[in-house]
């Protein structure tokens, strides 16, 4: 007779078979049987967070930096609702998460029982799929399916809601089937004709640009290698979305910087003027496209994406290749190499004028800023952090706002999975718990959360988690006392009415760090910045770094709303800019 296992045991057997090493969670009444079982499974370590949102973001950081799915365990009711923000964040940024939530016993469902909520109802729009387990016999397959759905195709979060009586009930356990088709939801069926057509477009292009996104990262480190090989082979300029940073080396000459609302002058102008645009694993987000009808008006557009619903959603494309980025790039490179016959050199000649144009745009130095000897400029702080950490394998997370854009602009990423940021949902409070998850995945690496003081206070409680597990995360707070991006919009668009964007009564971050039992460092002078950053890096435990920066600094360049890519507002040290600002301000 086959052995019967309790629901709680089955949960752990599944996690073991899925090779899960860490769970991020918080106990409560409706998941106690699962927590009770934890002690019997030494290969799985539970990380106790301080708030369920923190568990979700930590799992996201873990997943993004390791390429493995993040696992979250929460209780019913408030436990589940608290994790909704993180699930939505993961859904928007395509991060594979498996969230297991407790639920009140089946006979109490629908009775407004204590800590009951309609978890599957609430999380339906923010997960790829979710399950309410009503029969213990279904549990093993549902859990295996959950991992399958979360990690295949375009990755994303899933949730399995397990009522308490199911956790006690007993059933047989079955191992995951080797290859399980989930209704053909993963799409990798591009044809060689598509590849031929792509190569044809590449060989004809005179003003091409490659625009890569988070899909390259999600396709795995090999996809980044393929991307490098592909881009070097064809010699095209490449720009990247916020999520795609690191897929192609940020300090490479072919890389023309991030594009979009706060992208570089050369990247946005290249997007606008190009005659061939190759989108690799990006989704034409509205922060990227600006005004849709004037987006890259003269180009043939190619879109490589694993999610068919991403294609033609925002921008109509001329060639759609539905497939895994790595597979598509590999076969393209293979085919180009096979063809050879002078294609490589002749094509580079074709685009030499285009490169000259790009060099001209580059001379604008659109990321430039006026540095100061008296106050720390936030861009300068990020640059110094980069210079002092670039010689070691550093992982950067961010919160959301100005600091996030400065980090994206001034920190150069050379490898994938080193950059964790909330792009789609724009969740303030993402970076600190994400850093916890990254450090769990990479215990010996340097993990820095480039933060803003407003964002970081939203999930500050997770410092306690970092201290408990001795995770030496560095919270590098660019403290300008404002919700900087809100303040910037109010300055530019709302006649400097700084409505509620100034935080009075901020905590003393050094004392706060000490209260949590970690180290606090404060810098308010450019002269001492380097030493203080070094002090932070050298410290073995977690650090909160209070970097007092110029509160009036704005994030430039910037595409004002409703404007195409070639009408950017540049920074204050550009002479021409004053004209554009005047005009731009009237228009925005």
């Amino acid at each position, binding site marked *: 007779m086959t052995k019967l296992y309790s629901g709680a045991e089955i949960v752990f057997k599944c996690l073991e078979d899925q090779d899960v090493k860490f769970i991020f969670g918080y106990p409560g009444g409706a998941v106690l049987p699962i927590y009770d079982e934890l002690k019997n499974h030494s290969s799985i370590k539970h990380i106790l967070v301080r708030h369920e949102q923190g568990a979700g973001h930590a799992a996201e950081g873990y997943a993004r930096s390791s390429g493995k799915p993040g696992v979250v365990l929460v209780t019913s009711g408030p436990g589940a609702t608290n994790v909704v923000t993180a699930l939505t964040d993961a859904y928007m940024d395509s991060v594979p998460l498996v969230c297991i939530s407790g639920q009140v016993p089946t006979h109490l469902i629908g009775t407004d029982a204590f800590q009951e909520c309609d978890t*599957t*109802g609430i999380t*339906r*729009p923010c997960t*790829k*799929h979710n399950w*309410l387990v*009503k029969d213990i016999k279904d549990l093993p397959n549902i859990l295996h399916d959950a991992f399958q*759905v979360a990690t295949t195709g375009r990755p994303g979060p899933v949730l399995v809601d397990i009522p308490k009586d199911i956790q006690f009930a007993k059933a047989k356990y079955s191992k995951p089937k080797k290859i399980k088709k*989930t*209704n053909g*939801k993963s799409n990798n069926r591009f044809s060689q004709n598509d590849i031929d057509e792509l190569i044809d477009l590449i060989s004809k292009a005179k003003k091409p640009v490659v625009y890569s996104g988070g899909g390259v990262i999600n396709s795995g480190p090999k996809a980044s290698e393929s991307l490098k090989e592909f881009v070097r082979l064809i010699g095209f300029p490449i720009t990247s979305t916020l999520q795609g940073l690191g897929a192609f080396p940020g300090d490479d000459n072919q890389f023309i910087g991030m594009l979009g609302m706060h992208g570089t002058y050369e990247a946005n102008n290249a997007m606008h003027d190009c005659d061939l645009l190759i989108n690799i694993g990006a989704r034409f987000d*509205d922060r990227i*496209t*600006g*005004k*849709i*009808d004037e987006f890259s008006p003269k180009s043939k557009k190619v879109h490589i994406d694993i*999610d*068919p*619903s991403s*294609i*033609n*959603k925002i921008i*109509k494309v001329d060639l759609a290749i539905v497939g895994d980025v790595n597979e598509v790039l590999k076969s393209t490179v293979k085919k180009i190499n096979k063809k050879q016959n002078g294609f490589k050199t002749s094509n580079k000649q074709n685009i030499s004028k285009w490169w000259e144009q790009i060099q001209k745009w580059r001379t604008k130095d659109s990321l430039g800023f006026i540095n100061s000897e008296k106050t720390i400029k936030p861009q300068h702080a990020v640059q110094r952090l980069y210079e002092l950490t670039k010689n070691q394998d550093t992982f950067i997370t961010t919160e959301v706002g100005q600091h996030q854009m400065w980090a994206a602009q001034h920190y150069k990423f050379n490898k994938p999975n080193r950059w964790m940021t909330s792009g789609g949902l724009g969740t303030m409070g993402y970076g600190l718990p994400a850093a916890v998850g990254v450090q769990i995945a990479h215990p010996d690496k340097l993990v820095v959360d480039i933060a803003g003081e407003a964002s970081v206070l939203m999930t500050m409680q997770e410092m306690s988690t970092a201290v408990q597990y001795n995770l030496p995360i560095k919270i590098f707070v660019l403290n300008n006392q404002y919700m900087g991006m809100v303040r910037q*919009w109010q300055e530019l*668009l*709302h006649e400097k009415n700084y409505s509620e964007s100034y935080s009075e009564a901020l905590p003393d971050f050094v004392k706060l760090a000490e209260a949590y039992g970690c180290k606090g460092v404060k810098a308010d002078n450019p002269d001492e910045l380097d030493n203080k950053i070094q002090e932070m890096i050298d410290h073995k435990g977690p650090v909160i770094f209070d970097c007092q920066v110029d509160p009036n600094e704005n994030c430039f360049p910037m595409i004002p*709303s*409703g404007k195409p890519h070639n009408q950017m507002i540049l920074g204050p040290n550009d002479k021409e800019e004053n004209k554009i600002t005047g005009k731009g301000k009237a*228009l*925005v």
Partner: protein
Amino acid sequence: MANPKSAYSIPTKKGKLDTHILVVWVDNESGVLARVVGLFSGRGYNIESLAVAEVDASKNISRITIVTTGTPQVIDQIKLQLKKLVPVHKVADFKREDKKVIFKEMALLKVVGNKKKIEKTLKVCKSFSPVILDKTKQSVVIQITALRREIDKVSKKLKSLGLTSTSRTGAIAMTRGAEVFK
């Protein structure tokens, strides 16, 4: 004009709206209708009518027929988004004008009135193969099966004859001929 102070782009002009009938084959499991309907409301798509029932008990398959309107781009999106749902097996899409497809909707109509009005009522319904389901001295319940716009027309005409209740199923669809949608 959209608010020029918005941090988002200004809406661009919309294309022509077409009416489409989408047929969706799904696993008949709890919450599946909520997933489909939630997708429509969450992404701002229209539902003009919706009909659903299990069609294959052994395979546990339900067939959902949705009448919707949208620009060609939106209709494409609806189909692709539906196909991404885990319990969805396949999605068929027909234009309302499509001659190769049969569209039908059923309605139950209750008319309360004297003999004369009831007779007139039956006359109005005559061309839609009416079935009298219930008849008393002062009332009649009629079942008709017709196109949506025909039922619209009939119920408009019956208003003055004492139509008190209308119940409609929403359109269902099937292709003509031997072909089967795969």
